């Protein structure tokens, strides 16, 4: 298995990834939904836009800052390949878990989502919802994809499954949303505390008169619809305003070239043009909007992310990848087509120029 080169730039910012693909689109995970014996290859993308407040890391003068890992003993800078997972027991004993060991834990789950049971969506309490993703058909799976989406819409049910992404297992509900399959990762039952565990007091029968008073108060605030203005990000608006004012005054304006995300978790949260993904794989007239109906931050408000971020965030996201040490298998499936092409050429795979992403992945798996 060829190791991914650290910080290799894959997209040129204009997104000329390969012929006919206008935007650099990279999925978090690629794998196959198995529904009985039907398999549906899919790509998984983030189902939310990031908040606008993810900022870049600079020093007082605006020089670009970056993260480095140093050995606490030798004091020198380490490369991704020098890092390994360690588990510390309560008694302070440290066990080293190699990548190979970690990756061998659940190999099948890193490429498949097996649908285990169909359930009515309304039965899933909201505190199970963790994070939304959306699924796009990969390769030639559009028909099977549509079949699953339409069947779920007709029956009003969602499917429960599980898969492994970036070294962690996720319980997931796959649901159909206006012809698009979405995946909502769910918490496991043992991750949700009970009122008993928290130590909340025993339930009490309330006085009917008090219940009535509160019922009245609730009724007075009842509304048939959501008011989007109540759901917008006021903090982000205020921040945007402040930044614009500073720009107008010419205060602290710098070039973003080479800047990294300030929040380590925000790194790699790449903006995907969902519309483009849907157009390519599913429908010509797809429309994607945010609940506030404002131009999505990836497109208008924050163009810096789609290009500059792609380049600037690379080394950081490679380090972060080292940190999460996702399985090599999964990493492969998450690689961009350019990256896969590079690997394929290193491995001298015949016919690689005509292969699509999926074919490349399987050819590299066979060859390495």
């Amino acid at each position: 298995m060829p190791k991914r080169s650290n910080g290799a730039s894959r997209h040129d910012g204009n997104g000329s990834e390969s012929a006919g693909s206008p935007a650099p689109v990279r999925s978090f995970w690629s794998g196959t939904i198995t529904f009985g014996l039907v398999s549906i290859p899919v790509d998984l993308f983030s189902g939310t836009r990031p908040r606008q407040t993810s900022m870049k890391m600079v020093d007082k003068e605006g020089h670009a800052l970056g993260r480095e890992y140093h050995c606490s003993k030798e004091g020198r800078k380490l490369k991704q390949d020098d890092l390994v997972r360690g588990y510390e027991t309560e008694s302070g004993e440290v066990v080293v878990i190699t990548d190979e060991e970690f990756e061998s834990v659940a190999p099948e789950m890193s490429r498949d989502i097996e649908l285990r049971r169909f359930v009515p969506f309304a039965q899933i309490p909201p505190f199970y919802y963790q994070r939304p993703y959306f699924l796009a058909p990969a390769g030639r799976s559009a028909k099977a994809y549509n079949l699953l989406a339409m069947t779920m819409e007709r029956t009003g049910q969602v499917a429960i499954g599980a898969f492994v992404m970036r070294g962690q297992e996720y319980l997931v509900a796959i649901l159909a949303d206006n012809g698009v399959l979405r995946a909502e990762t769910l918490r496991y039952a043992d991750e949700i505390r009970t009122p008993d565990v928290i130590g909340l007091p025993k339930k009490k029968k309330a006085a009917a008169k008090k219940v009535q008073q509160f019922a009245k108060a609730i009724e007075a605030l009842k509304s048939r619809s959501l008011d989007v203005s109540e759901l917008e990000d006021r903090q982000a608006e205020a921040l945007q305003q402040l930044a614009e004012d500073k720009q107008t005054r010419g205060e602290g304006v710098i070039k973003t070239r080479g800047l990294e995300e300030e929040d380590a978790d925000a790194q790699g949260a790449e903006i995907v043009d969902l519309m483009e993904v849907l157009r390519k794989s599913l429908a010509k007239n797809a429309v994607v909007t945010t609940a506030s109906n404002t131009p999505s931050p990836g497109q208008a408000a924050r163009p810096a992310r789609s290009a500059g971020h792609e380049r600037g965030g690379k080394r950081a996201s490679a380090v972060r990848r080292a940190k999460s040490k996702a399985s090599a298998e999964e990493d492969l499936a998450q690689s961009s087509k350019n990256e896969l092409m590079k690997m394929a050429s290193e491995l001298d795979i015949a016919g690689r120029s005509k292969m699509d992403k999926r074919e490349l992945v399987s050819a590299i798996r066979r060859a390495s």
Partner: protein
Amino acid sequence: MTRAIWKGHLLIGEHEVPVKLYSAVEDRKVHFRLLHEKDSAPVEQHIVRKDTGKEVAKEDRRKAYPLTRDTAVILQPEDLESLEPPASREIHLCRFVASTLLSDQWYDRPYYLGPDGDEDDYFAFAEALSNKKLVGIARWVMRKKRYLGALHLNDGYLMMSTLRRAEQVLSFSNIEVAKANAPQESELKLAEQLVSSISGDFEPELWQDEHRKRVQELIDAKLRGAKITPLKRKPKPREASLADALKASLAQAREKKVA
């Protein structure tokens, strides 16, 4: 017993209910430390200037807000302070809506609200809310940050789930399936049968984090000094036509039921 992370009071019109906030999520992840492979020494993260490689101390670091494709504005500590919302202990219930108006995509993190002192009002309000099948849309400020939340119930107790912002939540429309990719009615019928053969109730206790368990077993085995043999992957089933695969799946599902 879990410690409360914050105290405040719910404002429902003219009514006030004092509450304590508790995280409803228990972290079960297996946490690793990054080590240097060669000497197993822990790894330290350094923040450095990219051009010089020199380490930059925390007080000399700043955040820059990107405004356009290639410009950003450096924010000073006083800029960020000026944006801090005024401290408050009030959780404002803006309105109550049908819970179906908020899709799963909005929900971020759940917290329990427990009574702070007076229990009567707390349980009276919880009962009133449970009778209505509504969720409350709430706003509050906690530790210098603004929050948006949905107030709902779990097992007769109040729960507040923080919500994502309108700008983050995506919706789709106008998805028209291309003719060539439209499943046939007969395939849809088969798929519906297959769905009903494996449908049931949402029983979260049934599903456990297998991966986490296996990682823990791996760690335990290594602690005992056992030898590790990696698991083999299963071969992939052969590809069949959609209709054939559906029929075969149905047959399989029926067999399972009989067995």
